[in-house]
């Protein structure tokens, strides 16, 4: 090998390769599921800690952690001054331990310079597997809230008691309790089987325990990869006095997690409780409304018995549970093959949740786009999809520094096919409203800013990642938004907040950015949608559907309205876009407040969901419900039509998605489709479609000759330039594109003349040619590659 003194140009090319930008990699959830489970003994402690964190240490596993603390004592002492049996004996002398748990999250400085701390008081029964966790009263966002949770593993029950009172005293707060089956609660698997011996076995793998004497106590330290555990044991009492677990780089964005257990009190005096059983009681205190969820499954079965319920009710074709407590938002994407879901782990966003792409056929989660536990204080409010199904957008917010209680929102746009994040757009405040244009190129978002509104609705260009337009409606707090299918109109709906909470709906003309209609003085609005032809806009409210909840249908104060704003108004209003006048007023009979509404693709039917568990299909002309679909137990939060309009999906607080068959109001007219058939279609007698390779560029040959005029017309509609006199772009040299193999080849046989060929390359570029020269080509990049691909694959079946 000779060394050339001159720089090798080949290296310049390699350099260029290294500098090429690479898109973000897909989420690892799917891969992780395929990889063998179970960590190595060395990594076990880390994973244990991580599992605790991920499942939500504060809510679910502090109990396990205190066992770990005791277990750790036992273990550590086996190699130290205090013997195992002695510590066990020392703890066994007591009935109850009370201690303070301080969880501190330190973020990456650029993400959030201030650490977040939460403090909880824990009580653990040392004779039975039951725990009580108390969260001190604090102001969280607009609420002053307090809560406690009792975990009783022997009875397999969990009771969460909480109170949310609006800080400013407007409207009614809520005092409620939820009783759940512990083993059916997410995250409980971690704690369920974790008993003292388990913790012991897990921690016995530690060999390198450092012991130092510190005053009256002994300090034990275990360093295991990212996790450091330190425990202080009192030499006199032989009881643990303090324990600190620190995890470095728990996950992306979180630089450090620190959990400290301190202020141990053994057999503390019980204040306000008669006995231990009282402390760990599974009934809520007086004045709290109890929602007993442990009995619900049995009731559900009863409901399904045939012959029950009114005759007009239809049964859902399919009832599925995507595995969360509550389905908060839902949108069809990928031609109806998937639905994007916002799932909450509880009826309160503070219990964490996730945004997933869920496959309708396999009934499985395909991609988890985002998730958070109850540490993160994140709120996923709404998900929406573009009409072409390629793109979805999620309104997601993060509660910032604990002191200012401010929300930091974001509208995140995802590719529905790959599950890849396209762009996040930041919003000042709680991201309330989100909508996508039909082609997914534009996304709009508006915030509920706490404590002050700026009333701005942003229109972003998804590809360029920049603000394209800013629309304004002074003082409006957005709860919902919509873009008409033709992209000409944008609507924002919400309320003006404190003190009147009067609702308002504003419609802007996109071309000019000016307000076209403004309807004020309404009850607070929580849903808005355009009819497919863009001639009507429907609104409803008020329900606080983005924050807080109220199972009895009363909107939550401070976000929804107070009683003053006329919260008994359940009217669905349909406005005429041309005149701006109220066209229809639909009054649900005996139903609850409307959470969400959506037009059917044919525009004839309006579907609504309400807080008492029904989904209604309205005949707009008659202003009457056509059918009421009952089956959901509890509030229904979301409803969506499948792209073909034949099914309706709804989801709610019972954790189910229900798919209902829909009979269109009118038989879908096929005429309009034929009108669009280009003139060229008449000339074409038949076409041959050949697939050479598939999406993955693997050899997958198939061919089909088609003579159906309708199909030929549909195909030509996808290539509008074919048959026109449009000259090929200069970028198409000679007879085609260099270096591109064909993915599809279409031959169009004409009555007269040579056949026309359309070649589609792997890169989904296409050109039409005849007699060896390019006749025309379309947009050099096909706008809707999947649509074309899907259509062709369908033909080839």
């Amino acid at each position, binding site marked *: 090998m000779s060394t050339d003194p001159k720089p090798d140009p080949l290296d310049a*090319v390699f350099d260029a390769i290294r500098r090429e930008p690479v898109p973000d*990699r897909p989420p690892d959830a799917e*891969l*992780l599921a395929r*990889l063998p489970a179970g960590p190595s003994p060395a990594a076990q402690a880390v994973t244990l800690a991580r599992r605790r964190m991920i499942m939500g240490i504060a809510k679910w596993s502090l109990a396990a952690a205190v066992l770990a603390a005791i277990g750790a004592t036992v273990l550590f002492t086996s190699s130290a001054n205090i013997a195992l049996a002695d510590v066990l004996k020392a703890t066994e002398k007591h009935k109850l331990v009370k201690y303070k748990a301080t969880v501190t999250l330190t973020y990456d400085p650029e993400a959030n310079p201030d650490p977040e701390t939460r403090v909880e008081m824990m009580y653990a029964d040392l004779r039975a597997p039951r725990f009580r966790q108390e969260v001190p009263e604090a102001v969280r966002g607009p609420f002053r809230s307090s809560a406690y949770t009792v975990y009783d593993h022997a009875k397999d029950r969990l009771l969460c008691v909480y109170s949310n009172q609006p800080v400013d005293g407007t409207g009614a707060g809520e005092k409620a309790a939820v009783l759940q089956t512990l083993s059916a609660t997410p995250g409980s698997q971690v704690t369920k089987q974790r008993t003292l011996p388990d913790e012991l076995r897990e921690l016995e793998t530690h060999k390198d325990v450092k012991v130092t004497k510190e005053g009256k106590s002994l300090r034990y330290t275990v360093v295991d990869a990212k996790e450091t555990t330190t425990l202080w044991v009192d030499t006199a009492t032989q009881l643990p006095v303090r324990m600190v677990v620190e995890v470095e780089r728990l996950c992306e964005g979180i630089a450090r997690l620190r959990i400290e257990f301190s202020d141990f009190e053994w057999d503390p005096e019980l204040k306000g409780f008669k006995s231990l059983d009282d402390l760990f009681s599974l009934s809520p205190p007086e004045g709290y409304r109890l929602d007993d969820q442990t009995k619900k499954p049995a009731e559900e079965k009863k409901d399904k018995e045939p012959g029950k319920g009114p005759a007009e009710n239809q049964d859902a074709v399919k009832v599925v549970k995507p595995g969360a407590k509550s389905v908060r938002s839902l949108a069809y994407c990928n031609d109806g093959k998937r639905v994007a879901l916002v799932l909450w782990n509880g009826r309160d966003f503070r219990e964490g949740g996730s945004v997933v792409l869920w496959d309708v056929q396999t009934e499985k989660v395909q991609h988890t786009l985002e998730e958070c536990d109850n540490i993160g204080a994140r709120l996923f409010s709404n998900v929406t999809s573009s009409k072409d199904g390629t793109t979805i957008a999620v309104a997601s917010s993060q509660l910032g520094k604990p002191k200012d209680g401010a929300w930091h929102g974001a509208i995140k746009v995802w590719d529905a096919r790959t599950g890849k994040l396209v762009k996040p757009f930041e919003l000042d405040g709680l991201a309330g409203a989100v909508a996508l244009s039909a082609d997914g190129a534009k996304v709009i978002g508006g915030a509920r800013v706490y404590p002050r509104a700026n009333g701005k609705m942003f229109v972003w260009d998804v590809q360029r990642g920049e603000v394209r337009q800013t629309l304004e409606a002074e003082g409006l707090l957005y709860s919902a938004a919509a873009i008409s299918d033709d992209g000409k109109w944008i609507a924002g709906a919400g309320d003006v907040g404190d003190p009147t909470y009067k609702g308002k709906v504003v419609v802007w003309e996109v071309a000019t950015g000016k307000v076209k209609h403004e309807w004020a003085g309404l009850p607070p609005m929580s849903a808005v949608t355009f009819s497919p032809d863009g001639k009507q806009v429907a609104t409803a409210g008020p329900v606080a559907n983005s924050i807080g909840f109220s199972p009895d249908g009363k909107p939550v104060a401070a976000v929804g309205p107070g009683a003053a704003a006329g919260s008994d108004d359940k009217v669905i209003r349909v406005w005429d876009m041309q005149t701006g006048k109220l066209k229809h007023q639909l009054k649900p009979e005996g139903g609850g407040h409307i959470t969400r509404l959506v037009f059917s693709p044919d525009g004839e039917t309006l579907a609504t969901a309400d807080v008492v568990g029904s989904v209604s299909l309205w005949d707009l002309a008659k202003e009457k419900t056509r059918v009421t679909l009952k089956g959901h137990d509890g509030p229904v939060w979301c409803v969506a039509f499948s792209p073909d309009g034949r099914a309706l999906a709804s989801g709610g607080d019972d954790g189910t998605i229900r798919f209902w068959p829909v009979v269109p109001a009118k038989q879908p007219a096929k005429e309009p489709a034929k009108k669009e058939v280009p003139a060229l279609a008449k000339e074409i007698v038949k076409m041959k479609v050949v697939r050479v390779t598939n999406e993955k560029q693997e050899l997958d040959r198939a061919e089909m000759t088609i003579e159906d005029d309708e199909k030929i017309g549909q195909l030509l509609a996808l290539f509008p330039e074919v048959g026109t006199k449009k000259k090929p772009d200069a970028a198409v040299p000679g007879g*085609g594109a260099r270096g591109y193999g064909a993915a599809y080849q279409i031959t169009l046989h004409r009555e007269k003349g040579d056949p026309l060929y359309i070649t589609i390359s792997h890169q989904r570029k296409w050109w039409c040619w005849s007699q060896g020269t390019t006749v025309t080509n379309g947009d050099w990049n096909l706008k809707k590659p999947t649509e074309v691909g899907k259509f062709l694959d369908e033909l080839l079946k």
Partner: protein
Amino acid sequence: MVDWAALLAEHGPRVWRTAFRILKHYADAHDCYQDAFLAACQIAPRHPADWGRILTCLATRKAIDRLRARARSARTEPLDAVPEPSTDDDPAQPVRLAELVDRLCAGLAGLPGKQAEVVWLSCVEGLTHGEIADQLRIPTGEVRVLLHRGRQRLREHLAPDLSDTWRPS
């Protein structure tokens, strides 16, 4: 047994970069990325610090295999009636570096698998000869030979477009 979540977090970005740069196709790169980790299940490294290199090598191998398979199927499949790509672009137009990058990757597909792997690992991933020899279980001398031959062939592949002032001897 391995803590896969930690490995994915640590080495995922690099493995993904490797796969994507070779294949330039999202779905393919994703498959390849997953394959690399799945293949890693069979491996017990002598030292945990080796994981980065092991995974990079696995990703490179999987991606190059796929690249070669792609090239093979394109060759054997007669694309009847597909117009020949014209090669006579405006000669005055200087060849852009980006195009050279594309062509180099195409050139990689034409090399014997091992040569392509060695070239990529050395020239793009920046592994030393010793590290490559260790991973591919071949002598260091062979690494040098493969690298030299591979680069020679790539140069020939790009020859008309590479700088005129420099020609391989």
